[in-house]
């Protein structure tokens, strides 16, 4: 398996891996038993405010970890929205994801949507 330079870098550094603790909005998707599980925690200080901090956890392939890390990083400073900071197809291109791995991206998206729902953002 060859990974793009960006995938490799986010997989290796995994910025934002971890949790924020009580008070953060949290959402997860997938399952470890199925091979891919992702969780996001977002800190939104004021209702209607921007995302102040974001963390992720991921059990999955390097692409899954890299994309989750990138999404968490990209989330900071944005207004909470039900859409990912970047759409699934754009992420696929950005990380040069093989087509058979598209399912993993959908898990990332589902985890994001779950976190948004937890934060009270309507989709």
């Amino acid at each position, binding site marked *: *398996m060859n*990974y793009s330079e960006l995938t490799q870098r986010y*997989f290796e550094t*995994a910025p934002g*891996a*971890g*949790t924020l603790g009580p008070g953060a909005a949290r959402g997860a998707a997938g399952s*470890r*038993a199925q*091979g*891919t*599980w992702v*969780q996001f925690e977002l800190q939104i200080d004021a209702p209607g405010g921007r995302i102040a901090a974001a963390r992720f*956890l*991921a*059990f*999955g*392939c*390097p692409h899954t*970890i890299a994309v989750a890390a990138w999404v968490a990083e990209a989330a900071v400073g944005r207004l909470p929205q039900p859409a990912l900071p970047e759409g699934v197809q754009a992420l696929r291109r950005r990380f040069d994801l093989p087509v058979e791995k598209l399912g993993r991206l959908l898990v990332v998206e589902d985890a994001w949507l779950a976190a948004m729902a937890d934060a009270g953002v309507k989709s």
Partner: protein
Amino acid sequence: MSPDAARAPMTAPVYLDNAATTPVDPRVAARMAECLTEAGVYGNPGSDAHEFGERAAERVERARAQVAAAAGAEPGEVIWTSGATEANNLAVFGAAHYYRDAGRHVVTARTEHRAVLDPCRELERRGWRVTYLVPDSGGGIDPGQVQAALQGDTTLVSIMHVNNEIGVVQDIAAIAAVCARHGVARLHVDAAQSMGKCAIDFGAAGVDLMSLSAHKVHGPKGVGALLVSRRRDLQLQALQFGGGQERGLRSGTVPTHQVVGMGEAFALAAAATAEGPRVAALRDRLWQGLEAIGRVLRNGAAQNTVPQLLNVSFEEVEGESLLAAVRAQVAVSTGSACASAAREPSYVLRALGRDERLAESSLRFSLGRFTTPQDIEVAVEAVAAAVARLRRIAGA
């Protein structure tokens, strides 16, 4: 350890994938080089009209004697092939087809190499029945299981000696005794992984057919042998027809340098009696280091495994990420990558009862003649760091 120094400015990974293939021993490479160019023994060993051919044939026969001696066979029982894949195919198809009128039932095991399983599947397509034995959780096949599986029309039993993924050793002599009592069933043993890891005695074990490979024991890729017992007048249908070489069982020009390399590799391995304890100590150190990581499972019965192999599953770690995290430091095989393009959880580990996740999150460490204590330390450190990091990312 650099596979291609000019291309690898960073330190090359430690090579712990000797069960996939091994570097050729320099002594073997030197013998091979003698059989290539104009200055060497380049004749066709089948050309009996001149001394170039005769010299080559002498080398071929010397190599045959070396392989026979190392495996406990007679030189006349050695049939050169292009590797253990061909030897397995020749054994399975050759015996099944030759004895088709005596029956069309074959017994093998779920944990065999694909070079046995795939020919068995093909036999099924051709109308044979195949029984696939399921090993115990340690990987062992009880001779009693073989006994119970034999039917009146069983003509062939194919059980490997040393498993290539977990290193478990089967009790071949006991299985041979079961087949001998049955009378009709012939025993083929895939011993591609055995030489240099576990003593083989073809004659004493009472085996009918045995597959060998050179490149798993510091010999060249692309050469192997099928041992065909002469004691029981065993017959085979050839797979490949032509010049009539190898008693008509395997036509095709015998590649002198290749078989010379195999002969030398087998002679060296047979002579290297101190190698087992040395490697066992390294393997033990490796296991000790990995076990300390915590939540790791050893695959295959530890007490019944060759020293060169250690297969470990890591809980709460995803397989592909584990490989990606260690591959810059350690070259190993995993339970999810396999030689073929298909990426599936190892069917061998699945047969032992491991779930899909644990099968995928396994690493096979295979040691060889050139593995050093330093290699082991690098591997332990790299794997420990990777597992810790991935578990942290997974919140596990």
